[in-house]
């Protein structure tokens, strides 16, 4: 019967044992068979079991971690999909209070081409303008902070 479903870590371990025996005539359990097991022995052997499981679990954990942080990660993809959902929630037009009445439509409010805000039109209140994010920039938190900054510069 196959010992495990894989050609994996256990194969490497066993190859090391074989080479160890060939190179150094090393026999791990040479004639220690007849000894009984003490409570310390039980503890040590249980510790070995836990340690082996932990080591293999850590190796598996590395693989899981690597697959998550990789740029093709499905986790990242779904995380960005959630951001996309947030994008939809951002209103197309945002209100901004500017202490000026002569800002014309089409004025760009930022020199960052990736985070530009465009004056769309005036509202009934002469100090409140509607702006729209352009260049597909949709970080809502960033836009809000940008609006606050711009608002302050006009005051």
């Amino acid at each position, binding site marked *: *019967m*196959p*010992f*495990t*479903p*894989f*050609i*994996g*870590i*256990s*194969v490497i*371990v*066993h*190859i090391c*044992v*074989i080479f160890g*025996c060939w190179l150094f005539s090393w*026999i*791990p*359990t*040479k004639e*220690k*068979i*007849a000894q009984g*097991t003490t409570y310390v*022995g*039980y503890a*040590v*052997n*249980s510790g*070995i*079991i836990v340690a*082996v*499981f932990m080591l*293999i*679990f850590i190796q*598996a954990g590395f*693989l*899981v971690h*690597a*697959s*998550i942080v*990789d740029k*093709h*990660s*499905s*986790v990242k993809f779904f995380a960005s999909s959630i951001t996309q959902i947030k994008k939809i929630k951002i209103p197309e037009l945002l209100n901004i209070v500017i202490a000026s009445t002569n800002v014309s439509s089409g004025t760009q409010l930022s020199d960052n081409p990736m985070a530009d805000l465009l004056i769309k039109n005036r509202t009934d209140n002469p100090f409140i303008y509607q702006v729209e994010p352009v260049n597909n920039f949709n970080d809502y938190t960033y836009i809000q902070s940008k609006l606050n900054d711009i608002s302050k510069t006009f005051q």
Partner: protein
Amino acid sequence: MKISLLVPCYNEEKSLEASIKSCLNQTRKFDELVFIDDSSTDKTPQILASFGDKIITHRVPKNTGNKSRAQEFGFQFVTGDFVVTTDADTLLKPNFVEEIEKSFQDPKVVAVAGVVKSLPYNWLTLCRAFDYVVGQYIHKLAQSHMNFIFVMPGAASAFRVETFRKYITFDHDTITEDLDFTYKIHRNQFKIVYNQQAISYTQDPTNLKNYINQLRRWFGGGWQNVIKHYSIIVTKPIRAFELSVIYAEGLIFSVLIFIIPFLNLWFAFWFVFGYFTIAFVFAVWAAWKEKRWALILVPFPYIFIMFVNAYVYLEQFVKEVIFRKKNLVWFKPDRVTITKTS
């Protein structure tokens, strides 16, 4: 030194004749060949009868439905000092008995584990042949250095009869009796040797359904024996190390290979590709070792088989360990006629 052979048979008409001939055609003859017909319904009784007094045949009055029960029935007719146990779908290499006899020259030796090779048939038997090469020439060889043979193969084992009767016996409480025997031998601190020259050729499942059913028996029986013989694991450091490496790898990586494709498909592709590359390196080595060049192609189906193996491994873990649903129903794969003998 009197060496007996014990072979249980149930509906083995396709392979039995070739098997008996291989047992008779030994450089060192068996002193006694005992065949147990487990109430076969095909031509098995006639084939057994055709060998006349060359073999001893006994028929179980009612089908036992289980190999180990048929073996137990047959054991009462064994009169040798040593007994070779094999299957009716297995061929023994002509020097098999000679090698077994050599191993038993050491009076401390209680059991001898031989080598099992898969008779060629199709891609599934090719995968199994690959498993056998890696399992026996790497795992088992290392285990023999560590004095801890994980399992005595059911198709190629030999025991000191007196010790077997006194300490090993048949419990019928697990579905892999060979693993149960092995753990009992370890529990009693007896010595097992692995003889790489004692070679047998067995017939493995030739279709996926039978392959999966055989895996269920093996892996399910593996978990049953771990539960039954848990105490032997914690009594020796080397056993603790060996068994935890084997079972931790099987369990953790079986889960992992199903999780990774969900986490990162691209990464899973590279993971499988890496596995393919490693399998290819081992396949070339296996092909050279066995002089069976088709083994070079084994990485292609082996990727698929890896997922099948992992699925069955987890399935049996859940069934046997978590839900404790013990399956003791014997599975016998469909046989095909043995046409190619080595």
